[in-house]
């Protein structure tokens, strides 16, 4: 399994090369000149040319792509045109807040998704099933943006339960404090994360619950379940150990894929909830054609996504001993 993981990690190199080339190619094709955006409307053509030269944008595309690869190989992602700081620093400051929300959202969606999916399958054809599948339908169809605004209206303005915007203390540190018996920071931190994570997580929960339901239905109809019933095992044990354990496999692989959707959704939720993450940074980078920053963020998202999917594949072997990773 270690050998397998190492081989998969080695594949990250072509992945990175490819992601960089594709991003670079797209940014070549999209009209819009960062030099002109940098100088604003009140700039002369000459000044724009001057800036293009100083940013190195006047060089042929293959020179620029090549030098980006060379810099990247030395761990240098360049300097953002607009943030006035190295791309690596800008990303480092923003990546933790985005991961915080994504991880909490993932947990929420797994919990809700599993609960609803199992309930719907177990009470198949009853109002419980109908209600949870209605929820799933709503969750999938609701635009993240609209849902976020609605949630804020309800929880922050009407009920005054949660802070409407901003981030509390960093989650990891707050968690440590809570373990040492000081829960205040954790409460504060979670109260800020709650709304963005719910906004992101609910759509995801809907997807997962539908999947869990169908996987459970399939498993519940199989012979070994009947055998388990015949042996007189407790229903609880059958559902949660025998059936769920076997239904989990396709669900886990989808959770890996949904992580990508969570990162993408961060772009929207972060600008609603004033969350200082990579999503917000990505929006401004794209709207300014901040090429090195766009490149860096896309690369970060791609690598994060690849790592999660690697973990999912490794998890397979843990959940299902029949699977051998070669």
């Amino acid at each position, binding site marked *: 399994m270690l050998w397998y993981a190492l081989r998969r990690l080695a594949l990250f190199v072509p992945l990175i090369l490819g992601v960089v080339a594709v991003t670079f190619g797209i940014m070549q094709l999209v009209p819009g000149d960062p030099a002109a955006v940098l100088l604003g409307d009140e700039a002369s*053509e000459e000044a724009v040319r001057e800036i293009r030269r100083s940013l190195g944008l006047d060089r042929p595309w293959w020179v620029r792509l090549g030098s980006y690869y060379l810099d990247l190989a030395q761990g240098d992602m360049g300097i953002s045109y607009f943030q006035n700081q190295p791309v690596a620093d800008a990303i480092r400051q923003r990546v933790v807040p985005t991961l915080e929300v994504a991880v909490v959202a993932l947990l929420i969606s797994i919990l809700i998704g599993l609960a609803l999916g199992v309930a719907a399958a177990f009470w198949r054809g009853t109002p419980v099933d109908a209600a949870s599948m209605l929820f799933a339908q709503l969750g999938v169809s609701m635009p993240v943006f609209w849902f976020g605004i609605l949630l804020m209206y309800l929880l922050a303005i009407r009920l005054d339960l949660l802070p409407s915007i901003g981030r509390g203390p960093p989650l990891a540190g707050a968690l440590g404090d809570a373990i040492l018996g000081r829960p205040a920071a954790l409460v504060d931190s979670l109260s800020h994360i709650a709304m963005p994570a719910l906004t992101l997580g609910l759509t995801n929960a809907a997807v997962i619950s539908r999947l869990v339901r169908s996987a459970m239905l399939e498993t519940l109809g199989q012979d070994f379940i009947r055998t388990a019933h015949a042996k007189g095992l407790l229903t609880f044990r059958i559902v949660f150990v025998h059936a769920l354990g076997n239904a989990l496999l396709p669900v886990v692989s989808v959770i890996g894929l949904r992580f990508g959707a969570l990162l993408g959704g961060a772009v929207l939720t972060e600008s609603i909830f004033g*969350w200082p993450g990579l999503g917000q940074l990505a929006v401004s980078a794209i709207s300014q054609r901040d090429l090195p920053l766009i490149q860096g963020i896309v690369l970060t998202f791609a690598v994060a996504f690849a790592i999660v999917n690697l973990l999912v594949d490794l998890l397979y072997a843990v959940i299902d001993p029949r699977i051998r990773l070669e």
Partner: protein
Amino acid sequence: MKYARMLATVGLTSLAATAATAEITRLGADVDSATMDPRIQRNTTEYRVNNLVYDGLIKLNADLQVEPGLAESWENPEPTIWIFNLRENVTFHDGSTLVADDVVYTFETILDPDLKARFRSLFTPIETIEALDANTVRITLKEPYAPLLSYLDMGIVSKDYVESGGDIQSVPVGTGPLQLANWERGAKITLEPFEGYWGGAPDTEGIEFVVVGDNTARAQAFEAGDLDIIQSPLSSQDIGRLVENTQFQNEILGGLGITYLNFNTAHPLLSDPALRRALAMLVDQETIVNAIYEGVDQVATSILLPSSWAYDASITQPGFDPEGAKAAFAAAGWTDSNGDGTLDKDGQPLSIVLSTHSEDPNRIQSLEYIQAIMLENGVDASISIADWPAFSEGVRGGQHEIALLGWLNIVDPDRLMFGQFHTGGSFNWGSYSNSEVDAHLDTGRSATEIGDRTAAYQAAAAIIADELPYFVIAYQGYQVFHTNEVSLTPDARGMMRSVIGK
């Protein structure tokens, strides 16, 4: 017992937090700063933060009148020479004293293309800037340049701090009434009072700029009590609800921007002023301003802003008049000869592309409304929308036909006219050229008497209102909402000096 204590701890902490932040004024911002260096500022949050952290030679008050800033007084012995006498005993946030060299350094570096200062072009008429002694600065111009004074609110940086490698991008050292306490990128910028301020320590606990990208979310955060001030840009669907809420105060000011149609006069059809006039008569300004912009903006009548000293209400562009447009099209030879509902001439249909950028839904809606009326009146108008970098690249390259866009920060008429309408001007994207207008704009820039400048800009504005290289749709309004606890004199640029009484 254990749980009770835990709850008590939580309760106390949140109480303490409330008490400590109660006095800080929290302002909603639509974007984060990208730099704390005023010389390369680009976005509105940067201007507004820098305006509190730094001082300029002069200060523009809420009515845009020039007041002394770091310069106590100034003289203009010759049209091309300005001498500024600096205040003594002004200290930077790091404790060092302001000297004339700091002023010289600030402007010399702005003029250096390597700094990539966005507002460099405002200062390029400067020939030299030099320190006559520790407290006197002399600016020599290449040619008389009347607007200069109103641009000198640019924040002055500390030469020693920057040259010795101080991280001015993220740790500003200015002479302003507030200094940076903390900057959580992408979330908030917290400013605290600077006790050593030359004008006396400000009476405030500080100001916090809180970044919320989405307009509606920002309005809701304000309603939820998590912000104390929000201001333009606001979404029209939120304005009505906020105005009705008696917990908030609300003020609207004439802004410093315009929304306009840029006619590309190099386009074969649009090169005819008569056709431009006829098309302009199909723009229903009233409806756009009142229905789309919720009455915050005002119907524009000319290129001169009502807030400007050069304003003259008697200079007017054509108004909304579909019948008049029909007659004007007919007079120019455009009729619906084949009965297909579209005007034509010499077998060619009257086809026009209207364009704008995708970031501002109000602009898209305005353009769609203009298109609808044009279609009703026989003009085959289509729409092209792209995001700002792509759209502006097209307009800068003169590839547009009729573009809807805007100008901001017009503190002097020169800034809205010289580069825009002068033959070969830097932002004359519609290739407009009229030697009379050129002469008036030259006079407006070089004359030192305000009366002469006024006459020149009014003469130019009258020609522009008739020939329409621009059709100005609206004077942009500026709106601010704040809680009753905040005392604020609205400033059309969104500056917050009045909140801290400085």
